[in-house]
C-alpha cells in the first residue's frame, strides 16, 4: 500500500471539510472583522440535527442517500436559522463596540451552544448510521472510499457555487462592497444588516453541510466535536489568509493534507516515540508558523493590526 498517496486521499477528504468550515470563519471576518468562534459549534449542531433526523429514518426502507439528504436539509435549515439568530442577538448589538466585546461574546455563544447540545444529546458519542455507499476503490495502490469521493465532490461543487454567488451575482457584489466599506455601500442602498445576516446564514449553511460530511466520514458525532474542528478550520482560514475566500479553500485542503501526512509519518519521523494520535498537533504547529512568518496568510493581503 502506498502510504503517501493514501494519506493524500485522506487529507483531501478531511481538508474539504476544513475548507467548508473555514469559509464560514473567513466570510464573517471579511465582512465585519469578527472571528466568530461559535462557528465550530454550529457545525456540531448541524451534525447532531442531521443525526437526529437520519437515525429514525435509517431503518425505514428509504434509500440511504435520500435519508442523508433529508438529514442534511434539516441540518442546513436549523443551522441557517441558528446563524441568523446568533448574529441578531449576540453580535448586532455590539456592532460598534470595541473589538474585544464581540470576541468574548463569541466565546460565550460557543459555550452556550455546547452546553445546549449536551443537554439535548447528552455526553455520549453517537454512532452515525452508514447510509452512503462506502465501497473502497483501489487507485495506484491506495484506497479511496465512495464516501470520500462524495465528500470531495460535494465540497468542491458547493465551493464553486459559493464563488459564483460571491463573484457573479448582485448579492455577492453587495457582499464584497460591504466588506470593503459598509458606509459607502449604504450610500448605494445596501442595507448592511441584511448583508451581514446573509453572510452568517450562508456560512452556517456551509457549516451544517460540513458537520454532516464529517459525521458521515467518521461515523460518529458528539456534543464537543465542534471545538477542535472549529479551531482547525480557523487555522485553515488563517493559513489561507483570513477574509479571503479562495484562501480558506486552499488553506483547508492544505491543512488536511499536512495533518494526514503528519499522522502517516510521525511514527517514522520520531522513531516510534509519537504515534498518529498526535495528528492534532500539526494544525497548531502550522498556525504558529503562519502567525510568525506570514500573519496575513498565503493569499491574504496585509491587514492592519486589529484587536
Amino acid at each position, binding site marked *: 500500500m502506498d502510504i503517501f498517496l493514501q494519506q493524500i486521499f485522506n487529507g483531501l477528504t478531511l481538508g474539504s471539510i476544513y475548507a467548508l468550515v473555514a469559509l464560514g470563519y473567513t466570510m464573517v471576518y471579511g465582512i465585519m472583522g469578527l472571528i466568530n468562534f461559535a462557528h465550530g459549534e454550529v457545525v456540531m449542531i448541524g451534525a447532531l440535527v442531521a443525526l437526529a433526523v437520519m437515525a429514525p429514518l435509517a431503518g425505514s426502507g428509504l434509500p440511504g442517500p435520500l435519508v442523508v439528504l433529508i438529514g442534511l436539509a434539516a441540518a442546513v435549515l436549523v443551522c441557517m436559522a441558528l446563524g441568523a439568530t446568533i448574529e441578531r442577538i449576540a453580535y448586532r448589538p455590539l456592532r460598534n463596540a470595541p473589538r474585544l466585546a464581540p470576541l468574548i461574546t463569541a466565546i460565550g455563544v460557543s459555550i452556550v451552544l455546547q452546553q445546549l447540545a449536551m443537554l439535548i444529546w447528552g455526553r455520549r458519542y453517537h454512532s452515525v448510521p452508514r447510509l452512503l455507499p462506502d465501497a473502497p476503490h483501489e487507485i495506484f495502490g491506495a484506497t479511496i472510499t465512495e464516501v470520500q469521493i462524495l465528500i470531495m465532490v460535494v465540497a468542491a461543487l458547493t465551493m464553486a457555487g459559493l464563488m459564483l454567488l460571491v463573484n457573479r451575482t448582485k448579492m455577492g*457584489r453587495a457582499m*464584497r462592497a460591504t466588506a470593503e466599506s459598509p*458606509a*459607502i455601500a*449604504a450610500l448605494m*442602498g445596501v442595507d448592511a444588516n441584511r448583508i451581514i445576516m446573509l453572510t452568517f446564514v450562508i456560512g452556517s449553511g456551509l457549516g451544517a453541510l460540513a458537520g454532516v460530511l464529517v459525521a458521515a466520514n467518521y461515523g460518529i458525532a458528539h456534543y464537543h466535536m465542534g471545538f477542535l474542528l472549529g479551531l482547525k478550520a480557523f487555522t485553515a482560514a488563517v493559513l489561507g489568509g483570513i477574509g479571503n475566500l479562495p484562501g480558506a479553500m486552499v488553506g483547508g485542503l492544505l491543512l488536511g493534507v499536512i495533518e494526514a501526512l503528519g499522522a502517516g509519518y510521525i511514527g517514522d519521523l520520531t522513531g516510534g516515540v509519537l504515534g498518529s494520535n498526535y495528528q492534532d498537533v500539526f494544525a497548531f504547529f502550522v498556525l504558529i508558523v503562519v502567525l510568525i512568518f506570514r500573519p496575513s496568510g498565503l493569499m491574504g493581503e496585509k491587514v492592519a493590526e486589529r484587536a
Partner: protein
Amino acid sequence: MSTDRGLLDVLNLEVNYGGIAAVKGISFIVETGEMVCLIGANGAGKTSTLKALARMLPARGEMRYGGAKLHELPAHALIGKGLALVPEGRGVFARLTVAENLDMGAYHRSDEGITADLGRVFDLLPRLKERRTQLAGTLSGGEQQMLAIGRALMGRPKLLLLDEPSMGLAPLMVQKVFEVIRTVAAQGVTILLVEQNAKLALEVCGRGYVMESGRITLADTAKNLAADPRVRVAYLGE
C-alpha cells in the same frame, strides 16, 4: 401646510464629535435645478454637513428633502429617494472592478433603464469604458473621481452631493471633473457642491454659502460672493 421652498431644506443643523461641535446650527436651502456650493477652509465643517445629510453621522436639527424628513430615514434608503453623495476621497470600492462599481451605483434599482444609463455614463466618461474590467483601486485619482461620479449617476439621483471633487487632482484633471459636473447639472440634476477650491466652485455654481468654523457666515449669489472683498481675501487669495 408645508412651508418648504427647496428640494433640500436644512434648519439649525448641528453635528458633534464627542463634545466637539463641528457644525453649529447652520441653515440653508437648495432648490430644484440649482447648483449651489458650500465653500470654506479645511476644518470648517463642510464634510460633516454632507455626512449628516447622507445619514452617515448623527445630527440635530431639521433636514428636509422633498417631502421627507431625512433623520427618519436610514442611510441606505436615501438613494432610492434620489439623494446621492460622492464622498470626500471618492470612496470607490478598490477591490471591485470599474464595471462592478458602476453596477453598485444601480444596486437599489431593478428597472429596465440600467443598461441605457450605463451607456450614458460611458458616453460622459469614456475613460471608464476603457477601464471597465480593471480594479478600481488601480485607477488614478482623477479616474477614481470620475468613477465615483459615474457610480452616483447610475443611481439616477435628483440631488447630488459632491464633497471636494477637486481634492488632490492635477489642474487639468480638475478642469475635466468640473466639466463633467457642469454637464450633469445641465441634464437637470440638482447639485450641492462642497469645495475648498472657491474660485472654481463660484464659477460653476449659481449660489453659494461660505462656512467658517461650523457656521455659515455668508450667503449670496456666486457672482456677488466672488466679488465680495471678504471672500476675495480669505478664499480667492487676494
